[in-house]
């Protein structure tokens, strides 16, 4: 889980790289990493599938919510009729056991939910994190104390447990995917706030910020025009790894039956009953599981690539001493 990577110090909160180098340099550094490029391609494809879900299912001639009772064998507990879980020209990936809903449609619409919820949650986390982080760094001492202690508590509470518990008390009239995104977003901002606070404290002391302050700029203008560009790099780095982590949380909540609820499809929710049907319709298990794995894996690799491109120093620190050959060569050189 990628939130773990962040805790390992793989990304330090001390990323004091102003990264004035600009967007072009970022792209150049990202382009040199083959794995990150492939991952970016996969992610782009997934986003495309999610966006084009109505189009794709229209092409197939199905939708994700219509029941097809005639396609499942009710005498045998609702096993899809036909070979390979009911794969046919009409239903490209077969149908769901018991209900007969089209699997291809549920999978593509599930991509919308997974990616949409994770992105929305990330936006909420970043927004809260930046606001509170900057406020803590620029505010009075007691404001900083209050916000920092609050952040400590938020970080201490396990994201999974808190979102699970919070989902119990919100009214069910709310659209479920929006709710899940909000809950994950409202709980998972702690580390962003910490990073932003640390970075802002460093930036605050720099000359161009002092100059702005001396010219009589207000706190708000300084934050927006002098500080935001400086905290962009660490925030983007962290946010890139928050997205796969949020996907996992959403899938887990929906798997437990408290996240996105039927009839809205979600990959995690599709897996809830999948173990019972793995023999009759293996794709009912393999497709959502595979989709989850590929998505989270690609996003994690991409996130790693973004980190390397934004903060080459941290990356090279991690790569210290690669290859014993180089070391021994250097040792020989020293001897000569």
């Amino acid at each position: 889980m990628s939130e773990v990577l962040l805790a390992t110090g793989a990304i330090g909160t001390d990323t004091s790289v102003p990264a004035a180098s600009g967007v072009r340099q970022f792209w150049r550094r990202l382009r040199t990493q083959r794995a990150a490029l492939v991952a970016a391609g996969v992610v782009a494809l997934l986003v495309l599938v999610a966006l084009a879900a109505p189009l794709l299912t229209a092409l197939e001639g199905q939708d994700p919510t219509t029941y097809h009772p005639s396609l499942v064998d009710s005498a045998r507990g609702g096993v899809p009729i036909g070979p390979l879980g009911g794969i046919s020209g009409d239903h490209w990936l077969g149908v769901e056991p018991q209900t007969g809903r089209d699997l291809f449609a549920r999978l593509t619409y599930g991509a919308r939910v997974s990616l949409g919820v994770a992105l929305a949650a990330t936006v909420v986390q970043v927004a809260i994190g930046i606001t509170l982080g900057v406020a803590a760094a620029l505010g009075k001492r007691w404001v900083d104390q209050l916000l920092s202690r609050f952040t400590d508590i938020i970080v201490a509470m396990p994201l999974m447990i808190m979102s699970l518990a919070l989902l119990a008390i919100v009214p069910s009239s709310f659209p479920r995917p929006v709710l899940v995104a909000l809950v994950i977003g409202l709980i998972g901002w702690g580390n962003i706030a910490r990073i932003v606070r640390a970075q802002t404290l460093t930036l605050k002391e720099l000359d161009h910020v002092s100059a702005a302050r001396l010219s009589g700029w207000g706190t708000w203008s300084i934050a927006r025009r002098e500080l935001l560009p400086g905290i962009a790099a660490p925030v983007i780095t962290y946010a890139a790894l928050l997205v796969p982590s949020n996907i996992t949380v959403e899938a887990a909540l929906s798997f437990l039956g408290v996240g996105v609820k039927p009839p809205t499809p979600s990959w995690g929710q599709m897996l809830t009953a999948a173990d019972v049907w793995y023999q009759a319709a293996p794709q009912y298990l393999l497709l959502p599981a595979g989709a989850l794995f590929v998505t989270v894996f690609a996003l994690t690799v991409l996130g790693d690539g973004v980190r390397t491109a934004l903060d080459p120093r941290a990356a090279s620190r991690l790569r210290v001493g690669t290859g014993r050959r180089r070391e021994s060569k250097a040792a020989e050189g020293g001897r000569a």
Partner: protein
Amino acid sequence: MNGFTGFVLRRTVGTAVTLLAISVIVYVVFYATPGNVAQITCGPRCSPEQVHQVARQLNLDDPLFLRYWHFLQGLVAGQDYSTGTSVQHCSAPCLGLSYQSDQQVTQLIWAKLPVSLSLVAGAMVLWLLLGVGTGVLSAWRRGRFSERVLTGVTLAGTATPVFVIGLVLMIVVCGELRLLPFPQYVALTDDPEQWAWNLLLPWLSLALIEAAAFARLTRASMLETLAEDHIRTFRAYGVGERSIVGRHALRGAFAPVIALNANNVGSAIGGAVLTETLFGLPGIGQELVHAVNVVDLPVVVGMVLVIGFFVVLANAVADVLYAVADRRVVLT
């Protein structure tokens, strides 16, 4: 106050304050809920009078701070609850009664705790062994093909949701190969051998996910240590590579691994909830999911507080261990 004792004392006080703050936040967030608890507890067919009666019975009409004060009193001194005809005494630490079953939340948690502790403790041993082992191996084989394979595998591990690994393991091992029966919890005190066999798959699923992070961390901190001057000195004295990697570089990974282990207690408990639900283990996680589904607030709040307590405690213990493991740490 200075020195190690002072440090431990300050940490203890800080931890207590954090726990109190958590209890306030959790209590307010959950009981100032927009949903109508009495309505939900009573069921969809209740008349307004019945709902009102339930609200009074649950003391939902009292102001929030008063209810929190009673909650704290119960936690410290215990409390008496009248459940219709009889009075039930809930001794300290009392977390209240379940809306659903009138059972004491403390007893409920106490009954489920052994299952969850068995799961997490066993998995922790596994993930530390697997993770640190893989990390050492990949630091030792750095730059070779085998290291690239290990790095890829651990990255895949961080990217797999625990319930996906668990599902696949269960289907392959129990369903197809029939190497093990489908897990069923057996208490350690009843039959230690069956206990271990039945928990093997849950342990593995939880450990495989968590181990990946430890492998990455161990490798990174060992590589960092390997680049330091004293290691070069060891090499110059002709100390063997195996001993350098296995003993001297490994020491550099101790403190970060302890820190990560404490950091991960939270995510591991989250993973345990999924593992318990997936394998049908009757632990705290499964109970929490049930309580969430039936909106049993005292149980939800009690569980969240107990889990928060464990996480905060783990972090405090880790801070102390960290200071012991790495003498360079400044005690504040």
